[in-house]
């Protein structure tokens, strides 16, 4: 495996945002979400696979995503998740919060 990709715990709560962002592009099952986050971050972010499921349950409880049993593109049975309207709203909220946070960190790091 070579270099160990970083686990996503540097920013608490950002896993929710990453999942919502992933699902806002297309409906996916749990495994697909892990793969997507890993690939689109050039293998920098590796979601701890087991931890994904409590996060999905939490998002579902809040009504931000909905899961339904179906088939993946390569014909595997899986629970496919879809983002809801409330989920998109939440994604917007968290994206803004995240942008503010990173900007603030960048300011501190850039301060003389």
């Amino acid at each position, binding site marked *: 495996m070579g270099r160990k990709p970083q686990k996503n715990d540097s920013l608490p709560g950002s896993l929710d945002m990453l999942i919502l962002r992933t699902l806002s592009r297309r409906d996916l*099952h*749990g*495994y697909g979400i892990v793969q997507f986050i890993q690939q689109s971050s050039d293998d920098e972010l590796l979601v*701890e*696979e*087991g*931890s994904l*499921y*409590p996060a999905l*349950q*939490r998002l579902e*409880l*809040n*009504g931000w995503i909905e899961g339904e*049993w179906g088939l993946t593109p390569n014909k*595997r*049975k*899986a*629970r496919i998740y879809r983002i809801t309207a409330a989920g998109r709203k939440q994604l917007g909220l968290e994206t803004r919060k995240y942008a503010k946070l990173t900007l603030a960190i960048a300011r501190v790091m850039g301060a003389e």
Partner: protein
Amino acid sequence: MFWRRLKYWKVRAQREESLREEMELHIGERAAQLRDGGMTPDRALAEARRQFGNMGLKQEESREIWMTRLGSELVQDIRYGLRAMAANKVFSAMAILSLALGIGANTAIFSFMDSLLLRSLPVSNPETLAVLNWRAPSGNGRDSVVHGGSGSIWAAQIDRTMNQEIILARLCTAFAMVALLIACVGLYGTMAYTVARRTVEIGIRMALGAPRGAVVWMVLREVFALAAAGLAIGVPVALGASRFIESFLFGVKPNSPIEVVLAMAILLSAALLAGYAPARKASRIDPMIAVRHE
């Protein structure tokens, strides 16, 4: 969120099985990918499991997300109801008393109604009665019930006896209806008063982002608390009243617990209806106006 949680509670066994299957499929998919990368099937599966982490623990975490907060929300609701009642003692006491009276009277009367109106006849062995066509010598024909076919009782006499019972039953029904009405009016009045008094508070809650449903629920849980207190007093009253009625009606026994439960359910839905109107009104409050309303 409350309803989603309640729904989960109902199907939690299925949901847990579903989650377990979902996790297994995930591991299967990872293992398949590792096999494609050249691992032996056994090693691939072991590696997939290792990467996934502690499945039982993750399942436990998922379950807690749905369950523990349900419990704490319930506790919160109960405490809120008690606090609201304590803040408004006189009106709460009135509402509880009228509800208790309504529930008590209705349950007691309802439990006798069936046997009083439909089953019993004021004779000792109703099953030995026979229906006879009786033709009196005077010439006016009449259908009536005569004991044992002896023909010794006049039809008019039976009618008179029955009449008394029926009038008593009707009176009781009317009384029960009035009691129910009073209970509902009392509850409606209490809740309408509470909502009016708390207009500013509700306005602030909504201005801070409380959704309509949360405001309706806030008022309704107070109704529930009042109804529960009314029930707690009303049911013993009903049982006592049943004994009392039993003592002066000959040969009539109160009916099965199912009917008592049914009577209470009717009462509770009536109370809920009476409470829903003020709750709805509370949710229509315009925060802009409410906050300025002093």
